[in-house]
């Protein structure tokens, strides 16, 4: 009897004392394909950081990876993600719109439009660059064959497409010229895989194509892998796009699991020098100026257009370019 009373008292004090008492956290981070290594490293670092302030807490972080659009749909359909870290803002917009699990203005809640790290689109070519590819204009030369995933099914491929469009616009001076350029470019594409990893397999393992349009971090990874540096070179074009993969807390899910505070801290810590360094080590461009200066050698400077300034954000770009009947469909159906 007395034992039970004691236990009850202990339970009550645990409830009221709140943060002073050890807690078990289980956080689910739903991300896209190429961030696997990045978050493995970051999770360990974050748990260390959290336990410095709350030494008795137990923190377990699970990661889920897949195509960005598919991951967004999983969260919409009920996957209990505390945070989403996806390939493009458009996908998180849909989670907000269809899932109603986070507010529409989610992107204003963290610095730099909720994008702690960025990347860009570069060319991966065969060693020695036998076709002499230096810039976007070289991709539409006679015998060059280009590998890129399908922008209809791959978030990464949408960045590729918009980077190509930006070049076409700058070189040609008009939207009509830009469309001509991308149409010509896609005539040089023999295979449209459904995701970025599929395209990498097509280019690296199956030996298709002379150039792979890839995220900078994916291109670096390909070089880092066994013998990759002996087989491929990275070519940085004169102009590309600032690929901004954003992050957000999924409020409703985090609330239900009592994870609001730790989920917020998890994303905020990405902006700390330690978080920024891990991003840079995994070949994502850091936002922090100091860390960026440290890694300046790794990331060559180039002209970058942005989705918000040059394309009016995903809310404009997605329907214009990629939805049914958009520019991408016109390239293939109006022949």
């Amino acid at each position: 009897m007395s034992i039970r009373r004691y236990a009850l008292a202990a339970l009550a004090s645990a409830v009221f004392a709140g943060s002073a008492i050890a807690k078990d956290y289980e956080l689910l981070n739903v991300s896209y394909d190429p961030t696997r290594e990045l978050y493995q490293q970051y999770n360990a670092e974050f748990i260390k950081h959290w336990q410095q302030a709350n030494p008795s807490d137990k923190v377990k972080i699970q990661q889920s990876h897949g195509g960005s659009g598919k991951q967004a749909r999983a969260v919409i359909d009920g996957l209990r993600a505390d945070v989403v870290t996806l390939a493009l803002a458009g996908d998180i917009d849909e989670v907000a719109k269809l899932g109603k699990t986070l507010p529409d203005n989610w992107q204003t809640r963290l610095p730099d439009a909720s994008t702690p790290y960025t990347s860009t689109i570069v060319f991966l070519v065969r060693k020695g660059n036998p076709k002499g590819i230096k810039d976007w204009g070289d991709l539409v030369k006679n015998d060059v064959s280009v590998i890129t995933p399908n922008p209809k099914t791959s978030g990464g491929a949408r960045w590729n497409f918009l980077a190509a469009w930006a070049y076409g616009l700058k070189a040609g001076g008009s939207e009509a010229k830009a469309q001509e350029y991308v149409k010509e470019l896609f005539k040089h594409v023999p295979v449209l895989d459904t995701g970025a990893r599929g395209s990498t397999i097509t280019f690296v393992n199956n030996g298709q194509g002379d150039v792979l349009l890839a995220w900078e971090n994916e291109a670096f990874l390909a070089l880092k892998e066994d013998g990759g540096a002996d087989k491929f070179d990275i070519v940085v074009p004169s102009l590309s796009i600032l690929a901004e993969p954003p992050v957000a807390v999924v409020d409703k899910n985090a609330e239900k699991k009592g994870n609001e505070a730790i989920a917020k801290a998890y994303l905020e810590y990405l902006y700390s020098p330690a978080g920024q360094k891990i991003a840079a080590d995994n070949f994502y461009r850091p936002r922090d100026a100091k860390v960026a200066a440290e890694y300046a050698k790794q990331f060559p400077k180039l002209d970058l257009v942005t989705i918000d300034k040059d394309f009016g954000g995903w809310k404009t770009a997605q329907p214009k370019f990629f939805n049914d009947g958009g520019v991408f469909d016109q390239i293939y159906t109006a022949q």
Partner: protein
Amino acid sequence: MSRRISPVIPGFGLTLGYTLVYLSLIVLIPLGAMFVHAAQLTWEQFWAIVSAPRVLAALKLSFGTALCAAIINGIIGTLLAWVLVRYTFPGRKIIEAMIDLPFALPTAVAGIALTALYAPAGLVGQFATDLGFKIAYTPLGITLALTFVTLPFVVRTVQPVLADIPREVEEAAACLGAKPLQVFRYVLLPALLPAWLTGFALAFARGVGEYGSVIFIAGNMPMKTEILPLLIMVKLDQYDYTGATAIGVLMLVVSFILLLLINLLQRRIETP
């Protein structure tokens, strides 16, 4: 104890109830939900989606390649079943076990492996390149992947029937003066055909819906090598659930009609 007339099949009520609940949970409700979702569209909207040139091109490709794969397996599969039933040779058990492997293997693995082999620079694909044609990234490649995935169907449906026909039947026919081809045409074929059609229909239906293995070898070029299930995925990636279900309904209706025809054909064969 009350006296009741027991039904012909014991436990009829129970088994029927079980069957209905089971079928509803597994088949009817999911498919019904799809039709309900697609019903949000007006008839005009539905028609606009399913009659788009890209959908029609994909429809032709999906059903065409599935049909080709089913025919190939219909012939080769019967041959395989024949060899396995009628002959004993060293390694027969191993081959027997290999037949089922395409079922066990994750389809994506099959797709990647086939693509690596049959890509223009691949181990087998390079010979095709020398001869001036491509296998991977063409409808030929899609047919190949489907042939692989649907291989077990015909073999496994024909095999037991073939095993049930004793050798003596063939010998008797031969004694009565039938030539080998006649034995096949008048003795074996009528017995095999219903099972063969079942295997054929299963292989065909499986091929139409196959996604995982095809997606790597198809190349996915719009209007050329884009299969219908891919178009569904494309719609889903635009969060266009309704458009996706519209194509799903189209596939289902076409498949249902074709399977119904095969079933009717089967019945005519079984009851001459």
